[in-house]
């Protein structure tokens, strides 16, 4: 009798078994994704403006580290090929490719996001494994685990190497953590990222970015081969690291000089993220610059400016 009943229940389970992979991978995130959002394109392209940390919840240590940053240090031979940390996925403005790997039963055990020019690839483990202990190796990719909440893939990255949160010197420590909520709406993919850093941030920094499915591939989703070469003569003697001494940062007033953004704002801090800070600026008498824009005026128009500039350049 048992031998006759066994196949029936086996067959009953067949659809469930066939379906198992789908249950584990609630939504298919696979594909090439190209940046869709039109925000901070300048920041994502050429890089943020000098000493502009408005809206970044830097604490006093983070601000001091930012002001000691010398942009030329990125040209040092030993630093030219350093990738940006994992948070660059929402601050960098690049497309990427996502794919999953499965176990022998077809159940997804990880999602992978490839590297983009100067960001390392990342793996999001969704098989229930725990991250290594805090004293394990810290890398630019960090170590990421994830789980599904409805159709949203929720991730947590730890073991991140200390580097830069923004390319204008806003720092990140090796205590930084990064959470992502990855949600797909038809052909759009939105990532909400939450950066926490007990060393340099006084509040979580929450960012969001949207990508569009790009069947033809994403032009920015390939790793660049970096070959360092001396661009500033005598910069890389192997003994010195460029830095700016306290009180000597000549770019500290860049935003005030060019955009009338007061130092209080460009220095960042949690309060600069909230609407009431705008009211404070109003009370302090902010006025827009009186002259016509002369640089970075249009989308993609990095070098041009002035009323005669043509605003139909599409790409950085």
């Amino acid at each position, binding site marked *: 009798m048992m031998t006759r009943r066994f196949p029936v229940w086996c067959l009953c389970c067949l659809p469930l078994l066939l379906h198992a992979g789908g249950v584990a991978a609630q939504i298919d995130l696979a594909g090439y994704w190209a940046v869709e959002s039109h925000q901070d394109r300048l920041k994502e392209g050429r890089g943020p403006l000098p000493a502009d940390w408005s809206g970044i919840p830097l604490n006093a240590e983070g601000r001091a580290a930012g002001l000691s940053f010398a942009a030329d240090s990125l040209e040092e031979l030993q630093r030219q090929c350093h990738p940006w940390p994992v948070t660059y996925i929402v601050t960098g403005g690049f497309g990427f490719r996502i794919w999953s790997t499965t176990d022998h039963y077809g159940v997804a055990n990880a999602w992978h996001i490839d590297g983009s020019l100067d960001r390392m690839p990342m793996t999001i483990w969704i098989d229930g494994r725990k991250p290594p202990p805090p004293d394990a190796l810290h890398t630019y990719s960090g170590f990421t685990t994830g789980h599904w909440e409805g159709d949203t893939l929720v991730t947590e990255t730890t073991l991140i190497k200390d580097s830069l949160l923004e390319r204008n010197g806003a720092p990140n420590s090796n205590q930084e953590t990064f959470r992502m909520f990855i949600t797909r709406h038809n052909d759009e993919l*939105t990532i909400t990222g939450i950066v926490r850093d007990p060393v340099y941030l006084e509040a979580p920094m929450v960012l969001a970015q949207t990508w569009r499915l790009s069947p033809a591939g994403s032009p920015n989703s390939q790793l660049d081969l970096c070959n360092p070469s001396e661009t500033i003569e005598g910069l890389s003697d192997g003994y010195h690291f460029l830095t700016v001494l306290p009180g000597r940062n000549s770019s500290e007033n860049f935003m005030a000089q060019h955009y009338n953004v007061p130092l209080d704002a460009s220095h960042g801090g949690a309060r600069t993220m909230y609407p009431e800070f705008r009211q404070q600026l109003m009370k302090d008498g902010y006025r827009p610059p009186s002259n016509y824009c002369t640089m970075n005026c249009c989308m993609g128009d990095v070098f041009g400016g002035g009323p005669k500039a043509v605003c139909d350049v599409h790409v950085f």
Partner: protein
Amino acid sequence: MMSSGRRALLVIGAGLIAQGFGVAALSADTQTDSSTVHSARAQAPFDPVGYWVSLVTQNWRFRMIVPGRGEYADVPLNEKAKALADSYDAGQDEAAGKQCEAYGAPVIMRQPTRLHISWASDNDLRVDTDNGEQTRVLHFGPPVATAAPEASWQGYSVARWIMHATSPLGAPPAPGAPTYGSIQINTDHLLPGLLRKNGVPYSGETKVLEYWEVHTEQATGDTWMTVTTDVQDPTYLRGSYSYNSVFEKELDGSKWDPEPCSLRF
């Protein structure tokens, strides 16, 4: 008496049908039409009601202050729009009573503001802003047969829930189990307005598509709402203008601070 072979076929068939439902429920386009039996309020997969505050961590200079003349970075505007923006005069528009033209639906979620979200009825979600004192109404449910809505700053918004799968085979969630989803909103019938207070225009032909997602971090209880906005304007844009806005849930309305529209700040 049913033979074991026939019974097996029936079981397989039932299983495959069940799986069919499951696959449908788990596909990327899983969308439950909210115009069915239950009200939008009853169907809500998350509770949007309460007070929310903008977190201006991106595009700070174009959101928190009025950018200077000619600062059009990030907006895919065409030459016609640029010419209009170059000749923009805030004083003229103020005199014409257009103080709220930079607070229309295409950009209201971009303003540094607090939101107060409440149910105006079982199928109408009301969204008030303190900055600019605007009110949006998101209409869920079947369309109400009335005359075409009049154009306004906030236009007419049709909303629906996008329900996320919560369990295998698309079965309803167990009582008390968390539910997930987002809101899709389509807005039109807009008055012409400004995408930026330095004169970047949008036309009355503009249509806005939004997705609102709410994320709660289990460990901290922190809750954020991410709004993805796509603005389509055949008159002044070369393509879709897309951006994200993030809001943080607040405990109460103690920081609610109404402030009238201004083209100067």
